[in-house]
């Protein structure tokens, strides 16, 4: 499962956060990123998808939800239907383009949610330590003892199936990874001389956290975000695939896959195409994410 990908990577990053040399020059890192052909290729793919998603309403596309029974299950390259049509005769090309909006939105929103909550929790636990740390980390342990997918499913079951709830569930599952990574980074930072110096100079706790601790963990957290976002998208699509996320008839890649599944014996492209779109987007994100990691975190290669 792609999920395992995200989480193992999360673990690796979490452990590596504190090892990062503090104050790597951003300019050098960007040069390293731009020299990485694969990373650039990934970034281009992502950019194209973002463009397509943004411009979808202005492109000369058929309405993704208009059915055309005469065209049902048309194969790819049929006249007027580049990627063919699904079981209701809806234009697959148009649905794939519109579906990219859902996937990108899901990726951005759920990652932001997991990142902001996870980082706050990790900061608090790591910086203040003591009883707060103990309590928070035991909670995180319980969260991690759950098979993440069951936790996500249980949350969706509790909140009711739907795209928004699936996103929330996937985000909640990921909070623990951000919290752990940030906490271990903060634990090391806390003892650094410049933090001690700031404290000695009479800086308030809020100022130390905001001006000195946060900027130093921001780069690795953002690198992790770039590697995590693909996983979030796959996982939410997975929930939609098993019927817990986006509901038909919305043009969502996971839902489209589930729809197409019933027709794989007669028209396999209906299921294959949305999956391919998902794969291409996630691959692009992962390539770009890997490039960012290599550029900003040379130790992690």
């Amino acid at each position, binding site marked *: 499962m792609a*999920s*395992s*990908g995200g989480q*193992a990577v999360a673990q690796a990053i979490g452990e590596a956060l504190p090892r990062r040399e503090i104050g790597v020059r951003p300019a050098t890192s960007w040069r390293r990123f731009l020299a990485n052909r694969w990373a650039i290729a990934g970034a281009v793919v992502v950019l194209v998808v973002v463009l397509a998603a943004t411009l979808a309403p202005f492109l000369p596309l058929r309405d993704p939800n208009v059915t055309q029974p005469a065209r049902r299950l048309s194969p790819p390259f049929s006249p007027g239907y580049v990627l063919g049509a699904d079981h209701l005769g809806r234009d697959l090309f148009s649905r794939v383009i519109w579906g990219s909006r859902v996937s990108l939105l899901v990726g951005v929103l759920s990652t932001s949610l997991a990142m902001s909550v996870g980082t706050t929790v990790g900061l608090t636990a790591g910086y203040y330590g003591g009883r707060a740390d103990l309590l928070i980390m035991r909670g995180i342990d319980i969260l991690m003892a759950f098979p993440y997918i069951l936790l996500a499913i*249980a949350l969706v079951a509790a909140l009711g199936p739907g795209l928004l709830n699936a996103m929330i569930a996937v985000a909640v599952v990921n909070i623990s990874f951000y919290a752990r990574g940030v906490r271990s980074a903060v634990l090391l930072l806390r003892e650094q001389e410049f933090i001690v110096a700031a404290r000695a100079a009479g800086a308030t706790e809020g100022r130390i956290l905001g001006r000195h601790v946060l900027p130093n963990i921001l780069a690795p957290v953002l690198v992790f975000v770039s590697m995590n976002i693909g996983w979030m998208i796959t996982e939410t699509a997975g929930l939609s695939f098993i019927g817990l996320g986006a509901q038909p008839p919305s043009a969502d890649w996971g839902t489209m896959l589930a729809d197409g599944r019933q027709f794989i014996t007669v028209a396999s492209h209906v299921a294959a195409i949305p999956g391919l779109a998902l794969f291409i987007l996630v691959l692009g994100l992962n390539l770009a994410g890997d490039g960012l990691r290599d550029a900003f975190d040379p130790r992690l290669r």
Partner: protein
Amino acid sequence: MWRYLVRRLIAAIVVLVGVSFVVFLVLHLTPGDPAQVLLGPRATPDELVRLRQELGLDRPVLIQYARWASHVLRGDFGRSIMQHRAVLPEIIRRFSATLILTAGGVMLAFPLGTLGGIVAAARQGTLVDRLTTTAAMLGVSMPAFWVGLLLIITFSVHLGWLPGTGMYSPTGSGGLTDLLVHLILPATTLALVPLSIISRLTRSSMLDVIGEDYIRTARAKGLSDRAVIGKHAFRNILVAMATVFGLQAGFLLAGAVYVETVFSWPGIGFMMVNAILTRDFPLVQGGVLLVAATYVLINLGTDLLYAYVDPRIRYG
């Protein structure tokens, strides 16, 4: 060592109690209950009240939890509300199906992933390395449910070589061969991502180790490549490998949910999705407890493995 083990086991019990309690709360404090599902949308309030009483759902949540927990301690997991069957034999049956699937995935992913990573690292920069790295990158980016469908389309629908659904053929003898034939496609699907991750992480930890002084020394004294990589370097990536294996074993179990759905494999993930949707509380509770216990055991096993592969690690 023993003290450590006892401490870990106590912590494990705490986690399990926590997990089961959280699930209990989530299930009970949200709208929709088994009575509603059983009686359907046209049930009268009277009927609902009566059924809830019968199922004990009208009591305070804490009391219900205490009752459930005390029964579990005596080995009684209750009865499934929807299937009218005892929970324990059902989850054991389902769980063994998932274990078979997971074992298939592990047997593909662990050895192949390790081998791929080592070969890639030992031949860094060559064609073999580039191919392995590219394959691994593609592998981690593929959604398992899509790969599963592609495999079914290719090998079941078009080529007709392998069955694409179920664990045994309905007409077959149900023997081991039948099972293995049914296992190939789902196990491959399940293994794909962990395989890629393991090979990537093996490669990177191997590269770290290869840069160390003692490897140069080993090379300098004229040892063969095989001895340097296979003995000196390999032993030193084992701790990192143990972590990855532990994590991946857990995630294989979780990933099984999608694979089971795609291949109609009668495992516990498939069962849990349905049980959660139909609010079959006893079944969900039992399933979660069993799966969480397996997770905790895998984690404990991983930690004990550290001490075994690296004698410098000791637990006091």
